[in-house]
């Protein structure tokens, strides 16, 4: 009895000590925080009398906040004298939270529009145009680049935001269960016919080996935030260069319009409708949220999908952990369409993030200078690598992060506060790659991690198209909910599911145009022409 008690106590103490041991993230978070007082004042910018900037923005769970001891904001304050205090909000219903803030008339100095929309903030008269201050932000202008200025501007031609810049074109990729294809004796698909063969084979066979040959989903489609994204991979296969929400595209003659105006759209719709009827497309495509997509990828229920490249690694690991040792989600090149089109959306490099509100009109120049400093070499290093001697060192003129910092890929790296995406900045591809490889050489990556890398940097190379942004014109803002998300998107999905015919779809689409959708199209076309024309 005494022996058993002693063993139990010893085990409890051992487990307790393991629990109490500081994680790498905690150790480095503290190290970085401890190093903040040692930072030198920036020679490029320092506010001797201090500067206080208040803000409101969206926070993602994978990052710490300043309240959790994140080094990033104290470091900016130590180096520039500017205190940035952000009221971080959760992503859910962020638009409603912005509305509440507007209604209170108690605006912070800087604000993220989030799903409230920049054009809606402009329409409220809540934010200031920044066009007249470009000379105060040379680093930001240089980071955006001359050829991407149009991406920075809003539909009315003005600049209202401080951007975040990600110079990594890949993000999403088509993924296939390679082990299923091997078991079926099929090669990776190259042509449209190959893809159809693969999808039919997945539909007709018990690929997951659970004894039920009917539960495999050949092609799973993700719904997106409001149902707009689900068709991206197939639209691209039909040569339709759609915007991120799959509602707009640029035609070959350079006209910006809705995807439904594309000469191939009818054929696309007929094909997808037939695929749905044949059981090749996820029957739940209209309700399949991203987390549900991940669930079916992790649980042997689908054979092909298009989603974040990182999922190739995570879902492979999930299936292996569940006992399927051969599981592999292989990242492959975009689906080739019936006419040989093969393309995928390039991640938007320039994304507007922070707007300066009318409440900060008297200190707009100072705020812009702080943001511009974040895009300076000093700011970029702080954002991407942390603090020299603490999280990275210079080796042959290159910043190299310590192995412990990137040992767990992006997970720990971000949890320590680096590449602080909720605040934004200029992502450095080099830092991104160090996080991606987690200190392992390319040839040493396991198949899941290699698939992630391939999805980001290999299989889509040369197949990216510059994704047109969704131009938030006044007309778009006014009619979006009524005529787009609950209008034409609904008709499209009803048509795919066979609830209405393709002809009925187009008849109803024309009726929506008469209700105001034509105004949205015309305003978008005009705004795009103006933006591209400079």
């Amino acid at each position, binding site marked *: 009895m005494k022996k058993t008690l002693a063993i139990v106590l010893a085990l409890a103490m051992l487990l307790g000590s393991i629990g109490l041991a500081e994680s790498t993230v905690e150790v480095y978070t503290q190290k970085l925080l401890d190093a903040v007082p040692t930072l030198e004042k920036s020679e490029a910018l320092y506010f001797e009398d201090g500067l206080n900037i208040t803000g409101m923005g969206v926070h993602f769970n994978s990052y710490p906040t300043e309240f959790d001891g994140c080094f990033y904001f104290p470091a900016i304050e130590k180096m520039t004298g500017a205190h940035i205090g952000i009221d971080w909000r959760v992503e859910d219903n962020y638009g409603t939270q912005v509305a509440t803030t507007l209604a209170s008339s108690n605006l912070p100095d800087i604000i993220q529009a989030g799903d409230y929309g920049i054009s809606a903030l402009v329409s*409220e*008269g*809540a934010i200031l145009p920044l066009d007249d201050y470009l000379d105060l932000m040379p680093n930001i202008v240089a980071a955006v680049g001359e050829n991407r200025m149009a991406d920075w501007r809003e539909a009315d031609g003005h600049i209202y935001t401080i951007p975040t810049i990600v110079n990594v074109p890949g993000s999403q990729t088509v993924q296939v269960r390679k082990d299923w294809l091997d078991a079926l004796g099929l090669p990776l698909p190259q042509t449209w016919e190959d893809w159809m063969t693969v999808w039919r084979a997945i539909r007709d066979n018990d690929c997951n080996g659970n004894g039920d040959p009917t539960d495999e989903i050949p092609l799973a489609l993700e719904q997106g935030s409001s*149902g707009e994204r689900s068709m991206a991979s197939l639209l691209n296969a039909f040569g339709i260069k759609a915007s991120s929400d799959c509602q707009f595209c640029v035609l070959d003659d350079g006209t910006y319009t809705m995807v439904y105006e594309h000469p191939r759209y009818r054929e696309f719709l007929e094909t997808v409708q037939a695929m749905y009827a044949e059981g090749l497309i996820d029957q*739940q495509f209209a309700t399949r949220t991203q987390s549900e997509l991940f669930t079916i990828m992790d649980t042997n229920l689908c054979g092909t999908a298009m989603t974040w490249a990182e999922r190739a690694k995570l879902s492979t690991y999930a299936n292996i952990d569940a006992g399927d040792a051969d599981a592999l989600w292989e990242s492959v090149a975009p689906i080739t369409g019936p006419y040989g089109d093969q393309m995928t959306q390039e991640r938007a490099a320039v994304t507007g993030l922070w707007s300066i509100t009318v409440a900060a009109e008297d200190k707009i120049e100072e705020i812009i200078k702080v943001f511009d400093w974040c895009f300076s070499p000093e700011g970029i290093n702080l954002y991407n690598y942390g603090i020299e001697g603490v999280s990275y060192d210079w080796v042959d003129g290159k910043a190299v992060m310590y192995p412990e910092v990137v040992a767990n890929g992006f997970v720990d790296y971000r949890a320590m506060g680096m590449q602080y995406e909720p605040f934004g900045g200029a992502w450095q591809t080099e830092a991104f790659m160090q996080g991606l490889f987690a200190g392992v050489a390319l040839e040493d990556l396991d198949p899941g991690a290699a698939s992630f890398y391939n999805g980001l940097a290999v299989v889509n190379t040369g197949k990216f198209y510059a994704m047109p942004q969704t131009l938030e014109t006044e007309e778009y803002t006014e009619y979006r909910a009524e005529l787009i998300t*609950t209008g034409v998107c609904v008709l499209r*999905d009803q048509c795919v599911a066979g*609830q209405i015919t393709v002809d009925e779809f187009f008849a109803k689409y024309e009726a929506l145009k008469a209700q105001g959708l034509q105004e949205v199209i015309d305003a978008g076309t005009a705004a795009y022409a103006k933006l591209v024309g400079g």
Partner: protein
Amino acid sequence: MNAAAKNREPKQNIFNSKRVRARVLQNIWRNRYIYLMVIPVIIYFVLLKYMPMWFLRSAFYDYKLLKGFDSKFVGLKWFERLFTNPNLMTYIGNTLKLNFAALVLLFPAPLVFALALKELRSKRFMKTVQTISYLPHFVSTVVLVSMISTICSPDYGTLAKIAKMLGTKPISFMTIPEYFVPVSVVSGFWQSVGWESVIFYSTLMGIDQVLYEAAKIDGANRWQQILHVSLPGVANTFVLLLIMHVGQMLNVNFEKVYLMQNNLNLSASEMLPTFTYKTGMESHNYGYATAAGLFNSVVSVALVYIANAISRKVGETSLF
């Protein structure tokens, strides 16, 4: 003084009498705690029900949150847009369809359940059933809808598994418009029948036992006691609740409907309250949303009047 002259004499304001005033004040002081308890309710109604009515004016403005009523006045623009919206009748139709189904199938269910509970002989069993039936009421709408989605999922849902066991193809209940109302009503039945039976049960318990004794002496069996004592005893409560329910007919269980919506069932699930929400909170068109909400309220008031009038004529019981 004759009676006619007495009637012509100006009525004396009873509050002029010091004695009466003192008695009223004394009464208030004696019941001060009850009056205190009423204050939060009054504050609630003033702040959240009456004061917002002042903002109904925004239906006539291109309302901007920062500008308030300095926003541009647009007159009846939003009402014109609402009434020329070709989908308006579909929204109203969907709303009424769901509520009518709920009225017919769900509204009498708590009464039947309460009657059944009352007839149970074992008090312990009755209390157990009562407690279990209350529990679903405390499940949040978000959890309820995710439970519905999981149960109805044709990939891994319980219903799909049963269908496969029976050798049939699973039905995608959440994406076929025809199933929207049945799924909503059945899940509503599970969630609300226990809780909503509380009012009927307490009314039934309040019926004088002497009436039952008298019925027994007259030879009434249990069924006849229900028919001739219990049901007349709850009739007034039933009618009052029915009128109030009719008044809420256009105010569907918004959260549940909104969460159950998807592009494939929207032809059956888009209703006036969800349309109003999307117009206001997703499109930030507050004026238009207020106009839609105001229209919703006006129709609701009309429905209350109609239900009240019918009830007064048919059942001789009414709310006002």
